[in-house]
């Protein structure tokens, strides 16, 4: 699971939840930050997160004691049929996680002219883009993935399917790590475009807005 907070309060809460998610499903959980989140100072409040009920750990290696069998923790399955069974079980688990744990935020989405997909600090910048665009009479909506895996593909597809939406823009602080997922989610229903900066260069609201305008003008 990959969690992508957009501010420090969210980072605090997702970090706490991340441990519970890892514990519940026995999967690694990654926090995906960025340079801005790593360096910015913001007040945060602890104690806002309610811990989850965690499952019993009957599988743990605690010493056999009175247990009838040894507990063995490993990930090596040499026999193909056994490994395939393991893979199928894991796939079932991934499906369950995708169903229960996908997180995203919808912002200004209803009736939007254009839909932006952005996460982390980039999503904060996009809020300014949305405000600036509104002054020019353009309605920009945003789907902000909070989990990058599982990816909120259904939410993006649904938002993009609105008749008002002319296209979808993936804004990233990368050379395009998410845009392919966005394209898969939109599945050809609308044109998808990309704007990204990298190396520590932060995308500026006016540049994102300019990209949107040229995209709507049929150029990008």
């Amino acid at each position, binding site marked *: 699971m990959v969690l992508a907070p957009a501010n420090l309060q969210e980072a605090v809460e997702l970090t706490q939840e991340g441990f519970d998610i890892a514990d519940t499903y026995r999967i690694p959980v990654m926090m995906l930050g960025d340079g801005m989140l790593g360096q910015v100072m913001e007040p945060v409040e602890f104690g806002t997160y309610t811990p989850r009920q965690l499952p019993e750990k009957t599988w743990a290696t605690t*010493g*056999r*004691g009175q247990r009838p069998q*040894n507990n063995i*923790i*490993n990930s*090596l399955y040499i026999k193909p049929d056994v490994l395939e069974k393991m893979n199928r079980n894991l796939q079932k688990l991934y499906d369950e996680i995708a169903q229960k744990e996908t997180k995203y935020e919808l912002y200004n989405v209803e009736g939007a002219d254009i839909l932006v997909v952005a996460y982390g600090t980039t999503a904060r910048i996009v809020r300014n883009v949305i405000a600036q665009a509104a002054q020019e009479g353009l309605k920009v909506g945003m789907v902000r993935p909070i989990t990058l895996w599982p990816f909120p593909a259904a939410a993006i597809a649904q938002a993009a399917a609105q008749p008002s939406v002319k296209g979808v823009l993936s804004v990233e602080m990368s050379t395009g790590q998410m845009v392919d997922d966005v394209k898969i989610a939109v599945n050809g229903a609308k044109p998808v475009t990309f704007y990204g900066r990298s190396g520590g260069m932060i995308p500026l609201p006016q540049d994102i807005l300019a990209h949107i305008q040229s995209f709507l003008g049929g150029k990008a």
Partner: protein
Amino acid sequence: MAVVFQKTKMLTDAPFHYCPGCTHGIIHRLVAESLEELGVGGTAIGVAPVGCAVFAYDYFNCDMQEAAHGRAPAVATGIKRVHPDKIVFTYQGDGDLASIGAAEIVHAAARSENITVIFINNAIYGMTGGQMAPTTLPGMVTTTSPYGRDTDHCGFPVKISEMLSTLDGSSFIERVSVHDVPNVIRAKKAIKKAFQCQIDGKGFSLIEVLSTCPTNWGMEPQNALNWLKDNMVPYYPLGVYKDKEA
């Protein structure tokens, strides 16, 4: 009829997959017998390496956990700190422990983790086809040193027992061999003492066991035992390197 020998209950009935003449099997037995004789089978938790002993979790009749290559001391550290009352051990080859896992073993010893490490030094990467290990002897032929280990190019073997004994954190370190019966008996005593060291809460213990790899050394089992005695023992002298109590 009187029973003169019985397989220890701390080994499962799974048949070993080791090559004929490989001494991994003897060392498994010594570890298992030690656990049984010390009465800690029910509280033992072992950590298996990546290497020929990767299936150790099928052989030791106790809770077992598999670690990523070289990371057994880190996994054992986690287990022991959560369960300080349990007996935690790792079983690692020289590729696993002395190469990719060098940092883990050094810092586990430096932190004086109260765990027991069984370190199998067969001077080679067995599982992957006999490549040169950090412990490969100067001049020794392996698949990646076909003209013999050239120290000008490949440097010198790492002497783990000597090295770790210099750390204040290590408590008991001994190098033993299993090339003949007297040495097997000595090895058993050392392994048992290492576990006792942990039971007594004295901190990090490691037993380095010189072991054969007839398959990748390209020798018949008996010749491999002789080669170990004639070549490895002089380079890796046997004996106690650290005993805080002594």
